């Protein structure tokens, strides 16, 4: 039955080299209509590079790319840029978000393919059609909203809507679920299923193996730029995939002991963020405690973390060890509050700068003698961090921009782990990080908490919240609506609270 599916896209012996690294080598992949192909691998394995080659954004250094014509015959082509790809019926959602913030949602969805007559925009049609596509991805926002004002998850959905709206034969999604919560993820998997039924070829990358297990018809495993396995449905399970990806099986971390008695380090009292909802939030985090914030997209977790970190203005009081935190991020960072932002490209990284600079930025402040950078110490630190965060490639002089998405995320977290902050605020700490590295990051965070730091993190992955947190706070519409202890929490309970149910019922579920 499977062989009926026509091959729409094929790469033969494709490789891609960059100065200093080989991102991909000798890859053969076939993409069939009516099939979902998952590509998995560690951070830096070459997944994004492969997808970019499939969609013409990146040109391979060697090998060839074949695209099926209307009759199903394959022809070798050279796709040069997104325009060629669109023409060939291929759509790509990039791993890093790419929306022009000055356009509205409808404009973004149709950018490059606007409905028009003689170059004249048909704005009503654009808006109407955009609304349909937004509904399809489960996003209920006005198509004339400016993209710049959307939180990151909604941007992701807009990008997915954009890809769907091209009605391509091949839809390629690079970690589409990394910033989505369970609900949107479910919706997306449904959409992928619908596409499959329509005979569309879907290629996607995910670090969440459960998603892969749920939807994929076949899986390609990449490791260090090479294909280490290609499996059809039925032939793979979680353990095998992990084995193929990482080369070893992963141990699960044991649950931490809760420290009831420790003193309160971070106390948030009646904080109202800068945005329009204006609902007060209060919470406490004890020394050595890891508290998770759960909630739906737009629940207000990011807003809360940014307020505590002092990067946006807020009303209400924030205290560290009983003393009030005032002023901007500068003052608070100096008192030991650190924040790993949600949008790493915009708020976290200095993309054009080397990895070393990104890693040492916070450290140099605390380890300088009369404001002079201790360059030798810096080199040592960077070396240690690269090893500790398992950055790949392990070249501190490389520009962060050229790292894979997951490795970029590790770099942001590494910056703060280097200074042992008293309060660590993490917003989606492991977005785009592979399973192995996620376990490592979790271990690092636990290690930090064990030294007496207070950790407050927000995550859209319930799995991660359950895995990492000692205590879980659930947010809904800008307020905290419930509190759960890790050992008594379940995904269902959290979801119940997050969608507006009341706490009592939640704990019973």
């Amino acid at each position, binding site marked *: 039955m499977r062989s009926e599916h026509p091959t729409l896209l094929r790469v033969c012996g494709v490789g891609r080299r960059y100065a200093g690294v080989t991102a991909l080598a000798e890859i053969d992949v076939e993409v069939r209509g009516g099939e979902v192909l998952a590509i998995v691998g560690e951070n830096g394995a070459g997944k994004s590079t492969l997808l970019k080659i499939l969609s013409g954004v990146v040109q391979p250094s060697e090998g060839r790319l074949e695209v099926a014509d209307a009759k199903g015959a394959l022809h070798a082509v050279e796709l040069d840029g*997104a325009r060629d790809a669109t023409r060939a019926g291929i759509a790509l959602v990039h791993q890093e978000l790419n929306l022009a*913030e*000055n*356009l509205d949602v409808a*404009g973004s969805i149709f*950018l*490059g*393919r606007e409905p*028009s007559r003689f170059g*004249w925009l048909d704005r009503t049609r654009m808006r109407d059609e955009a609304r349909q596509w937004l509904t399809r991805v489960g996003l209920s926002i006005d198509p004339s909203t400016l993209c710049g004002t959307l939180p990151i998850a909604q941007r992701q959905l807009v990008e997915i809507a954009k890809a769907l709206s091209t009605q391509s034969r091949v839809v390629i999604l690079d970690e589409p679920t990394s910033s989505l919560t369970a609900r949107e993820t479910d919706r997306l998997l449904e959409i992928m299923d619908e596409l499959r039924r329509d005979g569309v070829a879907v290629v996607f990358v995910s670090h969440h193996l459960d998603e892969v297990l749920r939807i994929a018809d076949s899986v390609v495993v990449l490791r260090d730029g090479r294909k280490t396995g290609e499996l059809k449905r039925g032939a793979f399970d979680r353990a095998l995939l992990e084995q193929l990806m990482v080369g070893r099986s992963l141990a699960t971390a044991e649950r931490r002991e809760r420290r009831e008695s420790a003193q309160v380090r971070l106390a948030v009292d009646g904080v109202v963020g800068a945005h329009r909802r204006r609902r007060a939030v209060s919470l406490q985090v004890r020394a050595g405690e890891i508290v998770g914030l759960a909630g739906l997209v737009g629940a207000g977790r990011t807003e809360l973390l940014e307020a505590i970190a002092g990067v946006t203005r807020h009303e209400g009081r924030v205290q560290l060890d009983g003393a009030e935190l005032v002023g901007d991020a500068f003052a608070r960072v100096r008192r030991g509050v650190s924040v790993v932002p949600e949008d790493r490209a915009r708020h976290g990284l200095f993309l054009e700068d080397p990895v070393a600079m990104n890693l040492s930025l916070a450290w140099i402040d605390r380890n300088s003698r009369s404001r002079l950078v201790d360059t030798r110490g810096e080199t040592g630190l960077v070396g240690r961090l690269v090893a500790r965060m398992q950055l790949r490639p392990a070249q501190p002089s490389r520009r962060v921009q050229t790292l894979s998405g997951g490795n970029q995320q590790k770099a942001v977290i590494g910056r703060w782990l280097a200074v042992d902050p008293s309060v660590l605020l993490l917003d989606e700490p492991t977005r785009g990080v592979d399973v192995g590295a996620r376990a490592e990051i979790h271990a690092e965070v636990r290690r930090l908490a064990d030294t007496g730091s207070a950790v407050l993190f927000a995550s859209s992955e319930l799995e991660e919240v359950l895995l990492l947190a000692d205590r879980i706070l659930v947010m809904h519409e800008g307020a905290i609506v419930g509190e759960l202890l890790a050992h008594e929490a379940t995904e269902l309970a959290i979801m119940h609270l997050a969608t507006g149910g009341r706490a009592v019922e939640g704990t019973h579920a």
Partner: protein
Amino acid sequence: MKRALGIIGIFVVILIYSAFFAENFLSGINLMQLTTRTALYSILALGATLVIVTGGIDLSIGSVVCLSGIMTPWLLIEKEWTPWQAIPTVLAIAAFIGLCHGLLITRLKLQPFLVTLCGLLLYRGIARWMTGDQSQGFAGEFDDVRAIALAKFTIPGLTDYRLPATVIPMVVLATVIGLFLSRTVWGRWLLATGRNESAARYSGVPTARLITLSYVACSLLAGFGGMLFIFDIGSAQPSDFGNFYELYAIAAAVLGGCSLRGGEASIVGVLFGVATLRVLQNTITLAGFSSQIEFAVVGAVLLIGVAADELIRRFAARRLERVGAAASH
């Protein structure tokens, strides 16, 4: 439109001041002169806007004004070309200059500031070399051609004020560029390119071509503007004609609400930006300030104006936030 409100406010304040304190400010002939000048400078500012929208900058506007302005009478008088040969040639050269800028910026990825700064030096240098530093004028000839810039249309009912012909290109260009940016596919692409080039590129927008095109348009408008300037003035000296005009053009665009980071523009704002600068200069003379402090007054008024605009905006935003929050509960 919202972006333009600030400059419209500044403009109105200055206008009220001028009406009261500048002698004969409201006389027909003065308004006529002001219209002419606003029209001329706005052609340059519209060009600058197109480049600013892409996130670029064109410092060579003044020099292109100089080169084309000098070349026009030079070809007509010294080389004895006909206007039918001279005008297209001059415009073609201007467009070619823009093409070079665009290609250097998009293909070689050189910084726009650097490329057009070299242009600033180069084209003025060429104009000076070509003419041997001799000023060029029409020597009383070609009044028919100069009428493109000098003609005035009587408006029934008005005696003193006649509508200068330069208004036609201004209105046409402003309308075309305004519609282009807001209503056409390419305009949208240009805006997207200016704000986030890679997003546009990934969406299949031919960003390089659009950027190149906007430099071509900017230089072409500068060339056209330079021609109108010389038609209006009658003669010019290559070493100083058009000096600093790029700054006026860019300033007008920025005052009008364009962000130098690209992706934002308000054509109405740009026109008011130009008009503000012109009225300010006119008022300084009419109100009897000495020409020494003209610069100081212009600088100070603009600075105070934009600062006040920003403060008012902030205040309004705060209020809105509070009201909005109250309403949402």
